[in-house]
């Protein structure tokens, strides 16, 4: 077990290195640059001054070395744009993304499990077919288009919900207003993971239901409801929960689009801002944070799985 963990940790470190390297060279070798983010009227001298100030006159490989050295000591550098520490800029925005994703996960898991269980119970019947069909539709609709249609319906036509923004914070915070702001983003972001959770719950339930001990419980005369929701679901849940870990990269990708549609000022909109203004340290910082989240969640999933499912152990 220890060897497995060490092995996976080692792989994660290598993965992080590869990702940072690819991103760093990609953004640095590409056309444009931080001086392109200056105003159009800026003179060549003004631009040159900024290049020297930011140390961009040094070779890329040297800069990567410096960046890596600093990053290993926990220093992700200073944002070109605002001269603030990258860490601060990320943590200013991260809470919004966390809010959005946590609510989305809670929503998707609740709804996904209910639908998945229904699908499993009604296996092969109309409800099951309908749910399967809907899942494919859910995977096929471009989430940003659905988001726009939601805005069109709920904000433009019905005027029930605000089209955009995170709502008032701090003193002006108001729960109802807050929920009104967050409900559309959560539903849209859920579309990216809900169909997978439904499908996974369904197959996981089917597997559990067919097992001997459930038959035994049934034979003992327990109510069907109790059998399904207490005994079967409890056992089906573990793999379902772990699948969320697997879905995290997808969730984060979806967050970029969702945040853009609804003006949700989280990490997703920050990376677009950073990429557009070629704020290299900020792009790198966000990449590191995102990859770290993904790597850690994969690690946790692997560990849980290796406990749950011995097959994972054999793979290592």
């Amino acid at each position, binding site marked *: 077990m220890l060897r497995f963990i060490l092995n996976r940790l080692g792989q994660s470190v290598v993965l992080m290195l590869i990702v940072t390297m690819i991103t760093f060279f990609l953004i640095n070798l590409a056309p444009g640059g931080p001086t392109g983010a200056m105003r159009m009227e800026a*003179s060549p001298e003004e631009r040159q*001054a900024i290049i020297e100030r930011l140390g961009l006159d040094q070779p890329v490989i040297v800069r990567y070395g410096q960046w890596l050295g600093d990053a290993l000591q926990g220093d992700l550098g200073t944002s070109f744009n605002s001269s603030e520490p990258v860490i601060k800029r990320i943590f200013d925005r991260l809470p919004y993304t966390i809010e959005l994703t946590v609510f989305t996960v809670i929503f998707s898991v609740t709804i996904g499990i209910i639908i998945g269980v229904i699908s499993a119970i009604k296996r092969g019947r109309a409800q099951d077919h309908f749910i399967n069909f809907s899942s494919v539709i859910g995977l096929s609709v471009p989430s940003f288009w659905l988001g726009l249609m939601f805005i069109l319906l709920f904000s433009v036509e019905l005027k029930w919900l605000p089209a955009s*923004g995170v709502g008032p*914070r701090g003193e002006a915070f108001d729960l109802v207003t807050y929920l009104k702001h967050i409900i559309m983003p959560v539903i849209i972001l859920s579309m990216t993971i809900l169909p997978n959770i439904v499908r996974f719950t369904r197959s996981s339930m089917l597997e559990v239901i067919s097992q001997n001990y459930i038959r035994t419980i049934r034979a003992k005369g327990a109510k069907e409801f109790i059998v399904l929701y207490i005994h079967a679901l409890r056992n089906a849940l573990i793999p379902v929960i772990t699948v969320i870990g697997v879905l995290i990269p997808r969730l984060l990708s979806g967050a970029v689009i969702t945040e853009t549609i609804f*003006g949700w*000022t989280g990490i997703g909109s920050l990376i677009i801002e950073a990429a557009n203004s070629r704020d290299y340290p900020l792009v790198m910082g966000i990449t590191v944070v995102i990859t770290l989240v993904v790597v850690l969640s994969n690690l946790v999933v692997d560990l849980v799985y290796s406990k749950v499912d011995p097959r994972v152990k054999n793979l290592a």
Partner: protein
Amino acid sequence: MKTKRWLFLIMLVVTIGMIAACGSNDGDGGEQAEQPSGETGTSEPTQGGSVSIPIVADPTFNPWHPSAYAESNVINRVIFDGLTKFGKDGLPAPNLAENWEISDDGLVWTFNLRDDVNWHDGEPFTAEDVAFTFNEIVLDPDLGANNASHFSQLDRVEVIDDYTVDFHLASPVAALPAYLSFNTEIIPEHIFAGEDPWDLTSFNKENPVGTGPFKLKEYVSGQRVVLERNDDYFDQVAYLDEIEYKVLADANTHVAQLLSGELDIFALDDTSAIERIENADDITIVGRETPRFFWLILNHNHEEFQDKRLSQAMLHAIDRQAIIDTVLQGYGTIADAGIAPILSEYYTTDVKRYDFDQDKARELLAELGYEDSNGDGFVEKDGERLTITFDVGIQGDLESIAQMIQQYLIQVGIDVQLETMDWNSMIDKVVIQRDYEMTLNWWRYPADPDLTAYMHSNSADGNNIPAFSNEELDKLLEAGAQANSVEERQQIYLEAQQVMAEELPYMFLWYPQEVQVRQSSLQGIPDLAFGDALYYTNEWYIEQ
């Protein structure tokens, strides 16, 4: 336009029959747009209240910081003050400087400063602050301060006494007071002395100290900036309690929040929303002139683009009025040269004009030897098709405008290959590398007719992006920069505009109007563009 408005009116009538009964001005939003506003408000200004303004990104509270963009400007000119400000008559007006005079040789400007100004932290404002701002920030080539290029002729600023400074110039710059009103605010020496001005985030991002009518109360990244009234302001103290800037990246949201009353005033970028706003009660739309012109340019570094007849042919080929009507919803005036109507002392239409006349365009092309000899719809010279790559950065309406221009030019047989790209890449390719054939953009310049920076052959490395070179224009621009009286300058710039219109350093497209939208209850707004009206926030008030 008219038909569309009528169609919309008919739709309205069908859906809400009642409006038809009332019958009068609901449908015709244009009328409302023409109403004069602002100072004509009859009621007495009332104390109190708050105004909300949208910004698209987090600001930097330092007007000289290289990453202080438009979203920072609209805040910085309220927190800070320059020596001059944009006057209500379009000319530079006194601000921190009470008055100024120029030496006979035009090389020394003396500014007399107000002696009753305090920084927001209570320290007195003195000539040392002015000298520091220019000598240590603007003139330090290693810092690359914003707009430093406006002061390329400035040698140094000398402190004469506590409230007098001299600006020493290398060559005369008649536009100096205008430049001093354009994002050129003074920052406090007692805070910046000895510090790195860009890395001082405790000031630039957290706690700016200015002299303006409002001071920072709260800033939440990605959310909002709240300013509160400065009761110690040197001029008339503001009526409003607070000004709130909301960080909202999306233009649709700006419109939605304007309609719901959550935003009070801004310049509308997305003109497609005008119709919706016209139909709302309590919202005033005004078109405001600004010193801007849109342009299309050919790269004069390429020999085949140097003949002015090619530019003239292109202008004849493009239906500029149609583009103004379609994309700008009518908010613009066809441009003949670079000096916009807002500079009313200098603006003229008494120059060569290029009407929409595609036959004329074809004639001019034929004069240059470009004719469609093989019947493929495109013109050739020596068997080679006239193909021009058209690089355009994606921002605002540029993409739509570029697509229309491309179609008009194709109609006269020029094979225009449109390449749109993200703004940063465009700046790199067009502005920095100068690696382009044709491009489209606009200039926003200080309120002065001196366009040396954009057209003089000496500026070919700078903002003379087309690399245009014409001795006659060079001489006129130099004379205009050095002339001291308005009458003298008027004559020079009249001639300069005639040369511009004939030689076409830029293919001048139009002078856009700013579409200013605001809640009708917001009063005291001078008849200026939104950005310039911000110099007068102390006069804004909310009508009860």
